[in-house]
């Protein structure tokens, strides 16, 4: 890996600048109408750097990252599959980039056609009856979904339902979303096989139940086999079923949330439909609903009148939970997802779940054979699975985190660590369908090699990484001695 790179501020010199990027100075007179008391006195201390310095700095920074384009990135729950270059190229056509969000529909029929067809395709692959595209990430879609559940129940006068049930393995956004929607969270356990504890579920439901949030396959990497029963219990109690679509990749083309009895789902288009993660975002968290929730979908939606496409707003969807973004959500991300879905088509959609599952089960089998302990050894892996290193932690004092850091030295991004929390010393491993058998085999070799190191020279592992631009970082210090912005005086 390349070495450290100084901060952009450290390149700054008063008076330097990429001047060809600056418009002509209109002169002070152009600002004469702005009252002095509303004006800024000192210019903001942004860096003053040239264009080459800027290009070089950020190019070098980029090289400090692992990414799908450079490394296997088997981060469980994150679906780090290949982001096709075509999706980026065609979503960035000048006309798409130049379109103003409040421009007239007459100058947006091309865009709207894509979005409308995207809604239709998402309905088809999820088995839902309505889809809204505006949520800007998975958690945003969760918010929309639970808000719709609440709006639906409120519309029926069912005002007391404010409890959301989540299995203990649920992703943090599920309980956090419930809170955002003014609900109370009830966690329920899963059994030794990773399935929801039905007795606990039965005990938890009641007249206050707004609904349950589930992923299936769950974050334990196994398919919830009694999903029909779960649905029955919750529905009979008057609650609705929310599907967290983060794991949709596992079942794409194989089972549809709508057919499993879910009332509302979100999809992480940045996972299942391969829009890029961008080092943290943007995503897109489209929501799908059954017929009874359709009137509550967030606006705007895309409608079609004859051959013309148009935005649907309050007037069309009067019971809508409302608007979730200033405009229509992450349109550019939606275009990428649209292109991806059209590339794969009916045929490709079927293959996604199949090969994601094949890769996961192969890796699962190979790691088990190599002596690694599975959290749910009797179960099929879905598109991901959990290995627990509790034995290594106990016997060798080498933790899941140590394995994770050491994997970086072997040229592999680490799997998700310590999530879900209920499995001690866990690695949640999701290879995705776009990786080859060769890569999976190489990963198994690396894991075995690290296991050997852990037995023979554990310090190599516990002090990893050794080949990254930085050594292992002190997170405690980061949180205790907060250094969140650069100051010229700070040590650097």
């Amino acid at each position, binding site marked *: 890996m390349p070495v450290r*790179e100084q901060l952009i501020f450290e390149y700054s010199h008063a008076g330097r*600048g990429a001047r060809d*990027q*600056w*418009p002509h*100075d*209109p002169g002070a007179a152009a600002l004469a109408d*702005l009252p002095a*008391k*509303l004006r*800024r006195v000192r*210019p*903001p*201390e942004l860096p*003053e*750097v040239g264009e080459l310095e800027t290009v070089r700095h950020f190019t070098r920074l*980029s090289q*400090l*990252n692992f*990414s799908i384009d450079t490394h296997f*990135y088997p*981060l469980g729950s994150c679906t780090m599959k290949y982001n096709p270059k075509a999706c980026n190229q065609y979503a*960035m056509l000048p*006309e*798409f980039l130049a379109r*103003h969000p409040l*421009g007239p529909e007459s*100058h*947006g029929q*091309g865009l709207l056609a894509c979005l409308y067809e995207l809604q239709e395709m998402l309905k088809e*692959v999820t088995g839902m009856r309505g889809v809204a595209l505006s949520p800007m990430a*998975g958690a*945003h879609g969760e918010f929309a979904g639970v808000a719709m559940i*609440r709006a639906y129940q409120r519309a029926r006068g069912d005002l007391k339902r404010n409890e959301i049930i989540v299995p203990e393995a649920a992703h*943090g956004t599920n309980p*956090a979303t419930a809170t955002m929607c*003014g609900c109370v969270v009830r966690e329920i356990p899963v059994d030794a096989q990773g399935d929801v504890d039905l007795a606990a579920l039965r005990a938890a439901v009641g007249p206050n139940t707004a609904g349950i949030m589930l992923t299936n396959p769950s974050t334990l990497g196994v*398919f919830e*086999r009694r999903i029909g029963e779960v649905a029955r219990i919750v529905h009979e109690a008057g609650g609705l079923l929310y599907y967290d679509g983060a794991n949709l990749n596992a079942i794409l083309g194989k089972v549809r949330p709508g057919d499993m009895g879910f009332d509302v789902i979100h999809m992480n288009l940045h996972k299942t439909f*391969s829009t*890029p993660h961008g080092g*943290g*975002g*943007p995503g897109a968290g489209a929501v799908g609903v059954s017929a009874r929730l359709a009137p509550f979908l967030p606006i705007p939606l895309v409608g079609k009148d004859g051959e013309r496409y148009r935005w649907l707003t309050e007037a069309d969807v009067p019971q809508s939970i*409302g608007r979730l973004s200033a*405009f229509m*959500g992450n349109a550019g991300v939606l275009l990428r997802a649209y292109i991806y879905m059209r590339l794969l*088509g009916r*045929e490709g959609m*079927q293959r996604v779940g199949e090969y994601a599952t094949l*890769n996961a089960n*192969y890796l699962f089998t190979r790691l088990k054979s190599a002596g690694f302990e599975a959290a749910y050894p009797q179960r*099929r892996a879905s598109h991901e699975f959990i290995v627990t290193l509790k034995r290594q932690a106990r016997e060798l004092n080498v933790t899941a985190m140590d394995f994770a850091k050491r994997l*970086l030295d072997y040229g592999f*991004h680490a799997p998700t660590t310590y*999530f879900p929390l209920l499995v001690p010393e866990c690695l949640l491993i999701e290879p995705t*369908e776009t990786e080859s058998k060769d890569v999976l085999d190489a990963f198994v070799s690396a894991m075995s090699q690290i296991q050997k190191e852990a037995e023979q020279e554990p310090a190599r592992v516990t002090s990893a990484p050794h080949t990254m*631009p930085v050594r292992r970082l002190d997170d405690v*210090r980061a949180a205790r001695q907060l250094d*969140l912005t650069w100051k010229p005086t700070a040590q650097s």
Partner: protein
Amino acid sequence: MAFIPHTEADVAAMLAAIGVAGIENLFDEIPPDLRVKSLAGMPHELNEMEIGRLMTERARADGVPLTFIGAGAYEHHIPAAVWAITTRGEFYSAYTPYQAEASQGTLQLIYEFQTMIARLTGMEVANASMYDGASATAEAALMAVRANRKSKSARILVPTTLHPHYRQVAVTTAANQGLKFEELPFCTAEGVTPAASLARYDGQDITALVIQQPNFFGHLEDVDALTDWAHARAILVIAVVNPTALSLLKPPGQWGSRGADIAVGEGQPLGVPLCSGGPYFGFMTTRMEHVRQMPGRIVGRTLDVAGGAGFTLTLQAREQHIRRAKATSNICTNQGLLVTAATIYMALMGPQGLARTAAAAHARTRELVAALTRVPGVRLAFSGPYFHEAVLQLDRPVAPVLKSLSSRGILGGLDLSGYFPELGHALLVCATETKTAADIDRYHASLGEVMQAARAA
């Protein structure tokens, strides 16, 4: 098989290793009655050439009209370097930087971003982004409720001059948690929120006051007076600001005698293309004292075991993956790639470039207003200072005028009649530094013709 590298031999070897006869067997835990029968509603697969042609045709159909719409999304020059670097695979295809040692590029960039945004707003600390300006405003309201321990009411005062979509998003986002957004009227002569009109809240329990500068009409609020009024009553101030404008206007950190408590805004003007509304990013800043109430990711600088500096996500105990139901927000994925673009943009523009951009945009808008108000039947709606956006008053309905303009390839602004019926035939117009004198002439001439034709009809 698009994007699936498996050969038949691979599949056979893998199935043999797993010990099953076929891929279907891997789904044997799924109840058979749930299995998908068909996806007949999905179109067939296309190859890249076919989708490329389809997208190109659709893009061409939309064209590139000459745009004078602002209203929260602004057409600025974007240096070629911004997206050339932003779309590099190492930024584009990385995840949230959970493994810090393998993500120093993204982490250092966010640290630089936080610094730049803090300096631009004059605030102490910034997070790594929210979804957009509207959602950042909504989260700021929720944050204010947590941060203002003195207030129990969860009442938030919101000027009617706040972008109407922001208000709607705030309501959608926060109403379930019991927040009440109360609208402040605006002065129809000046298009701003008179500080005097706040007197009726004196003595009431109010949690926060939102101030947008420039406001939705482009007009400039008396931010000092509003801020001081609020602070005198232990009301937190949430600033909603345009980052380009901040290079010329007083930053929220300096509003009134103590500065705003939380400042948020839409980051789109900083190198992000219009793209029909997204992806953009919201920025959020606050004072250090409130940092633990802030939602979203934050990057901190720390040391590695060898004593070298490095960057890592920090204060994660605020976030959903640690704190779950008690987190400051449910946000997880944010708008990282746009932050990448904006950081590169801010580095390229620097303080002077950004100030020139703001000044040029403002100058163009003044020229536009001067030109258009020479057209009979068109006048400026409000007196008082505005910044790079203004409301015109027409003597006839706006929609047909815009339609005629659009058939000439000009998007003439935003018809306000749906948002503010009380303003009559009001049109919000904006010109940025991307507009030339010839563009303004073209709009002026076209508007003259359209208005005359309308009058004649």
